[in-house]
């Protein structure tokens, strides 16, 4: 007898495998831990995967694919959904023809993020169904369920995972066979897709009707299940917390929710009635607790101290015991730092020496905030370096304003720095401004992905390229410099001084390939030159 294959996959790998098995036609996203590997694996498995300049564009592209009747997957980390939220909210109104799965990979505890926002709230705010797998097998299975829900109710589905689901490896037994999706085809539906107020008003009502039907369906959905146990303690939980609960309270009766918006409130009420005491175990925001209590169902929630950081087995034990004593502090690990030979060190040394006020951004270079540089004064969100720097320049007295510099990476610049650069030209501060673009020809911090400024696709194939200095010049900025930072020459320092003293708008592009992938980058460049040479050598068509 053939035993089913047992694979050890991360949650990200499982999602990618399911997407491939389910015939997802297009995956788009922007790199962001812990979601990045989903599209990388999907591509390795032969899927059509693309990096978009940012998550808003990625979601718009996948909405387009889903309007065309195809199955589409959009991936991002939690803060990425902030960027993509504009299309998400209205896509709930328009609905889709095919399937649209939006993966939000949250990061409770901020292993590598600026905040630990809980994106389950987005499902409520936007009005979309939400699934939450608790391990890799469920990440695989729930993808098929998500696609079925999306196609049946013609609505985007939020597929919400967290770091411990994305990056934990658990056993997956894949399906033997999968149905092929319908071929893509355009069906005109003007009143459904064009959200002018006259059409949006009935669309909203249709959305609420869909959600009511989904809630009713959810009452008997196999995505939620009860693990039998004693009647004294009932626990309601979802996601990775379910696994911690099973270990921390093996004797408890557990209602495991997999389809967590709209909630199956009747099922929840019945479960609560059948147990003596019911505790809700969830990471982050008290989303479940608030929704269940709002429905008049009495449940216990965790103390406020447990909303910070991720949960684990010891913390779940504490919550169940209502232990409010101070938690043990873990010894700090060794923090990351800029690679020894990273050219950005030269830039940060210069900024520190000239006592600049630095509006920073998100990437490897954010490490310039640590010792020995301590050369970043603010870092808020992707692209904020431009706006924040300009805001400072507009209000500070001249002796301070003249020292303000914005620092951004190449990928972050394409993501959301371009509109900030337009702001710089459109509303120039009285003493000018200096933007430094740190261009290492890659999206480094997330694992060296390509982006529109590298001129290579996700699969490292040549494609259209954004030339940063040309872009800056096209906006009418006269002082645009490209420099390769070298230690010991003082060249970068002098250029920075010149720009700061000029009282004009200036863009300094500090360009040198990331040392960790310098060899690979050379290979890609050589391939591109061969490709171009072959094109020029070939005879022109008659």
């Amino acid at each position: 007898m053939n035993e089913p294959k047992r694979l050890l996959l991360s949650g990200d790998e499982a999602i990618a495998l399911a997407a491939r098995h389910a015939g997802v036609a297009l995956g788009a996203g922007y790199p962001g831990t812990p979601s990045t590997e989903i599209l990388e694996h999907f591509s390795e498995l032969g899927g059509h995967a693309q990096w978009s300049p940012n998550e808003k564009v990625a979601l718009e592209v996948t909405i387009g694919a889903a309007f065309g009747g195809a199955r589409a997957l959009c991936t991002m980390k939690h803060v990425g959904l902030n960027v993509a939220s504009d299309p998400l909210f209205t896509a709930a109104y328009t609905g889709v023809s095919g399937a649209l799965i939006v993966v939000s990979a949250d990061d409770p505890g901020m292993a590598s993020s600026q905040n630990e926002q809980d994106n389950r709230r987005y499902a409520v705010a936007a009005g979309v169904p939400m699934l939450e797998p608790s391990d890799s097998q469920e990440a695989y299975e729930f993808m098929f369920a998500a696609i079925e829900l999306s196609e049946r109710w013609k609505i985007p589905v939020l597929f919400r995972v967290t770091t411990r689901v994305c990056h934990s490896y658990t056993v997956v037994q894949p399906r033997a066979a999968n149905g092929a999706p319908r071929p893509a085809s355009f069906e005109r539906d003007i009143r459904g897709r064009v959200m002018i107020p006259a059409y949006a008003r009935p669309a909203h009502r249709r959305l609420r009707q869909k959600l009511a039907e989904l809630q009713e369906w959810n009452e008997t959905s196999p995505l939620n299940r009860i693990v039998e146990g004693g009647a004294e303690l009932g626990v309601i939980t979802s996601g990775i917390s379910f696994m911690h609960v099973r270990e921390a309270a093996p004797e408890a009766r557990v209602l495991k929710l997999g389809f967590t918006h709209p909630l199956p409130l009747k099922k929840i009420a019945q479960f609560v009635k059948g147990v003596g005491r019911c505790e809700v175990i969830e990471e982050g925001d008290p989303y479940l607790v608030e929704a269940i209590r709002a429905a008049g169902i009495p449940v216990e929630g965790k103390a406020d101290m447990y909303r910070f950081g991720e949960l684990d087995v010891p913390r779940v034990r504490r919550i169940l015991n209502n232990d409010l004593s101070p938690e043990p502090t873990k010894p700090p690990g060794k923090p990351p730092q800029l690679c020894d030979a990273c050219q950005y060190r030269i830039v940060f040394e210069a900024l520190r020496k000239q006592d600049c006020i630095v509006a920073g951004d998100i990437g490897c270079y954010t490490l310039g905030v640590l010792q020995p540089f301590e050369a970043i004064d603010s870092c808020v969100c992707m692209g904020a370096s431009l706006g924040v720097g300009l805001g400072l320049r507009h209000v500070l007295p001249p002796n301070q304003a003249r020292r303000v510099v914005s620092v951004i990476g190449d990928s972050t610049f394409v993501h959301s720095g371009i509109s900030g650069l337009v702001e710089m030209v459109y509303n120039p501060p009285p003493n000018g401004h200096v933007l430094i673009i740190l261009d290492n020809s890659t999206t480094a911090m997330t694992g060296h992905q390509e982006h529109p400024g590298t001129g290579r696709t996700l699969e490292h194939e040549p494609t259209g390229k954004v030339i940063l200095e040309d872009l800056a010049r096209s906006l009418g900025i006269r002082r645009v410099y490209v420099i390769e930072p070298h230690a010991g020459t003082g060249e970068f320092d002098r250029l920075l001084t010149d720009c700061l003293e000029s009282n004009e708008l200036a863009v300094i592009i500090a360009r040198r390939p990331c040392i960790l992938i310098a060899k690979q980058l050379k290979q890609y460049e050589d391939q591109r030159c061969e490709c171009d040479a072959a094109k020029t050598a070939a005879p022109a068509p008659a």
Partner: protein
Amino acid sequence: MTKVTNIVVAGLGGQGVLRGTDILAEVALGAGYDVKKSEIKGMSQRGGSVTGDVRFGDRVFSPMVPAGEADFLLVLEPTQVEPHRYMLRPEGVLITPDAVPADQLPSKKTLNVALLGALSAHLPMAEEQWLAALRAGFAETFFEGNRKAFLIGKGGQKSKVSSLKSKVPAGGEAA
């Protein structure tokens, strides 16, 4: 509650912490256990601390080893021992670079494999399974060096093994 064996591997980015947990998880999976492996690797490329948890048994729930419940703690970098000691059970086994004679290793890069060898002396999986996982997990050219490092690590543990082996349950059911 069925017994789960908990192993934590710690070190710095670039030392092969996660590759070590890959091999370990592969061996446990092949032996028929339920296996879960978790890691925080957002900062590993920049020389930050890296920790990987591997748990195996008949049924594993949480992918993270609870603090104070690690049966084995492998640490590749001396500075990372104290920050991770809290993970270890009172009677748990700590395996550090001291467990292997560094001058006998084929190369410094095989330290992670050598420590896996030391760990293997305490676990019920057969040597052949480990060697098969090592062969599959690295380029063929590295196999001889890895095999040597693995056996050096294993050999160094002989005196410590007998009292501990009974604490680890023997082979799981195949799926």
